[in-house]
Each structure stands twice: as C-alpha cells, then as structure tokens.
C-alpha cells in the first residue's frame, strides 16, 4: 500500500484553479520529487496534503486513511510533516524553542532527547545558535532550523518545499546529503525543488507538474535524461 495516495485532486484559490485533478503516489521509503515551473502548483499540492488548503475534489489517503477533511494539526499529529516554502520558522521564538515545537505531538521524552542531539549533529551551525531568536538568523540558518525541527517530529512522510532556496552551494549539498541520510534512516520524502538537477539526482521517482496538471512522471533517472525535461527545466545542457 502506498504511504500517500492522491487521486484526482483539484484546488482553487477563489476563482483561480491551481490544481486540476492531479494523482500521485508515494511508496514507503521513497524519495519522490515534484518539479515544475513557477506557479505550476507544487506548493499548492503540499499545502493541500498538509491540510492548510481544502481540496475542491479528489481524495488524499495517508496510510490508507483519508485525510483531506482533517485539520492541519491532526495531520501533523499523524507524523505527516510539511516544511513550508519560506521555512515557517517562528521568528519570535528562540532556535531551541523552535526545535522543541517540532516534537509538540510526541510524548516519548527520552527519544525526543536523542533525536534532538541527532538533529544538532546534522546541523552544527544550528547548535551554535540555540539561544538566538530565530527571526534574526540568516536564510540558510533558518532553513536548517526548519529541517531540524521537522526531524524532531519523527515524520513518516516528510514534505520539503524548496529546501535549497537561497542556500549557499555548500549548504545545498549538505541539505541534500541530509535528505539522503534521513531517507536511508527510513523516512519517506516528498520533495519540491526548483533545483531540478539536484532533485532528480536524489529522488527515486519524479512527477512533473505544469499549470496544475501532472505532465509526466517516472523514475528520476529516466526523466533526468529526457530531452524535453532538460530543455524545459535543466537549463538545456
């Protein structure tokens, strides 16, 4: 059974139709990436899955259960975690408090502690800044906090929206290494990325979204070699 199974999903903002009946599946243990141009509806897809938007039609099954009508906090409590575009960190809280909120729905204090140490190991930079107000961090630092925080929820499915946005090359590499590591540790990942080159490198499978529709899908390596994709998204080389 697929971990996440989306059937014929449509979403609108007022009169603007952002998604026009998309279907996609994420199997346990996979990294699936969603690529597409500006305004294609990638973020909208993630927001709908995590309950921030409600679909007009279609259904979303997570672990076989429908979640489309659930509220975002209930979905997060099911360990379907969304790191939104723009990072979604709490600027008025310290880095440490931000991280702790990641584990808001968990009660297993001891293991939280372990995960906390683990997350800080992944991002030593964050560790230096634990007491700083998160709002004063630089963009890259904020992205690290956002991912570290998501890990503290021990997600079954982690949805990342443009994690490399505004990050230095080195950090981008780091983030993608972390994505691999997390995945190797058993976490399923749904990745939205503008940096299609990198995304297709780490992902197992990929979907291409254009103006609210799935245009193409398949194993990531296959898509990376498709001429159309290269021309449209990878800079033509």
């Amino acid at each position, binding site marked *: 059974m697929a971990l996440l199974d989306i059937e014929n999903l449509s979403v609108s903002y007022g009169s603007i139709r952002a998604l026009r009946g998309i279907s996609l599946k994420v199997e346990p243990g996979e990294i699936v990436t969603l690529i597409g141009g*500006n*305004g294609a509806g990638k973020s909208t897809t993630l927001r709908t899955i995590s309950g921030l938007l409600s679909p007009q039609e279609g259904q979303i099954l997570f672990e076989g259960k429908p979640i489309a009508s659930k509220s975002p906090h209930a979905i997060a409590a099911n360990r379907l975690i969304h790191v939104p575009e723009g990072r979604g960190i709490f600027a008025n809280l310290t880095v440490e408090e931000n991280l702790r909120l990641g584990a808001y729905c968990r009660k297993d204090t001891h293991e939280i502690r372990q995960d906390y140490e683990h997350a800080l190991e992944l991002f030593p930079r964050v560790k230096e800044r634990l007491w700083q107000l998160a709002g004063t961090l630089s963009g890259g630092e904020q992205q690290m906090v956002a991912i570290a925080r998501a890990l503290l929820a021990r997600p079954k499915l982690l949805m990342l929206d443009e994690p490399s946005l505004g990050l230095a*090359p*080195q950090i981008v590499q780091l983030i993608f290494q972390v994505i691999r590591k997390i995945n190797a540790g058993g976490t399923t990942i749904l990745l939205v990325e503008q940096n*299609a080159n990198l995304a297709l490198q780490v992902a197992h499978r990929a979907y291409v979204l254009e103006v609210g529709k799935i245009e193409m899908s398949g194993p990531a390596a296959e898509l990376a070699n498709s001429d159309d994709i290269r*021309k449209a998204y990878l800079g033509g080389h």
Partner: protein
Amino acid sequence: MNQVLEHRSAGAAQQTLLEVKDLGISFGGLKAVQNFNLTLPSAGLYGLIGPNGAGKTTVFNLLTGIYQPQTGSLSLNGKNLLGCKPHEVTAAGIARTFQNIRLFPNLSILDNVRLAGQIRIRPKLVSTFLRTNGYREQEAALKAQAMDLLEIFDLQDRAEDLAQNLSYGHQRRLEIIRALATKPSVLLLDEPAAGLNPQEKLALAQSIRQIRDRFEVAILLIEHDMQLVMDICERIVVLDHGVTICEGTPQTVQNDEKVIAAYLGAIADDA
C-alpha cells in the same frame, strides 16, 4: 521615449562610483560585518558571495541606510552617504531589491513602478488637487517611463494587476524593475535568481547584463548560484563570518582554497 530612461551619460568607464571603507556593524555580540571594503566602478558588475549568514544582506542594509554602520565610511560619487536615511540613499542613486520579496502587494504593478519613479519628480499638493496641466504632464511622463520599464521583462500587459497576483518568479523581476525606476547609478540585487529554475536563471543572467549596458548602472549582486555569478560578474567579493576572505576575478575566487573550504564545497560544479 528612451530619453526618459537614458538619463545618465556614460562617464569614463572605470571611474569609481561607490566607495566603501572599513564598514562594520555588530548585533549584540555578533560581528555581522567587519572591515568591509569595496570600490565599485560605474557600470561595473560585481558579485558578493559567501555562506549563509556571512553578512551579505547586512552589507546591503548598511549601504542603503537601513542599518547605520558602526564603523567605516561610505560614499557615492564622492558624496558621503554615512548617516543618510534609506530614502536619501535611494535619492542619491542606490537602489536595491530584497532577498525576501517586498513589493507593495495591494498596489498594481504599474503603481509599484510609478511609485519608485516619482522620487525624481517634486509634485505639489495644490497642483495635485487642482490637477493643473503641469501635474498632468508629470503624471503622464511617469506612466510612460513605468510602462517602458515593464517592457524589459514583458510585464506591460499585466500593468493593472495587483502585485500579489504575480507568481514568485515574476515578483522577483518586478522588484528589479521597481529598483530601476528610481534611476539609480548603483543597483543592488539580493539573490535575484532564487526560486527560478535553471532555465529561467539563464534568461535572468542575460537580462542583468542588458540592464547594466542599457542603463549604465553599476550592479552589485548577491547570489548563491555559482554558475550565474561566475558567468556574469567581473569581480567577486567573498564574505565569511562578516569578513572579506577573498576578492578578485571569478577565476581567482573559484580557485581560492579559503573560498572552497568556506563556501563552494567540494562538488561546486554540481549546482
């Protein structure tokens, strides 16, 4: 109509325009930027790179008066800009875009640009109320200039749409247009390519060059996309922890060990 836009006659190509010496600021204990030096010639196209949190955006904030520098000096065309308020800096000729887009979301695209353009005119309240002929001419010229600028990025057809209805990539472009409308001599671009896919980035690089040539502005560019930076920048300054660790041509910078260690990482060509 291009006279409106070609407002600055080309000076000697390598004349120093922006001169920054030993600029520095710290927040609490954190030395965000220290001893930052920069000499930007007119119509130069320089890059400012460095790891996240290195202080790049802070340099922009210092240059534009949003933060007041604690040390150092800053001058444009020999005119001291230290202590100037942000709007005075803009009036003096430095314009910028923001890393986190800051358009006027509920204003139309046209108004976003006109607003920036009006810094160069001095309207009177009375003539505004009476709508005198002078006022009408001023407004017409302003609009014409704005529409011409919008054409650069093909946005003229959407002039009446609200800025918030643009997609992310278009918003980034509008920010650049808006900055240009202030008729700057120095343009500061903070990560203009963020959120664009590789294909779009190529187009953007093209546009940046064209802007430099057509408007003869000097451009200082913050960008994490190395391909773009190395491609279009004449010189590059690398910051790390608020300190300049390297400055030079793309080749020098690319091969500098400190830069590789601090910023580029091992598989730099991956990006």
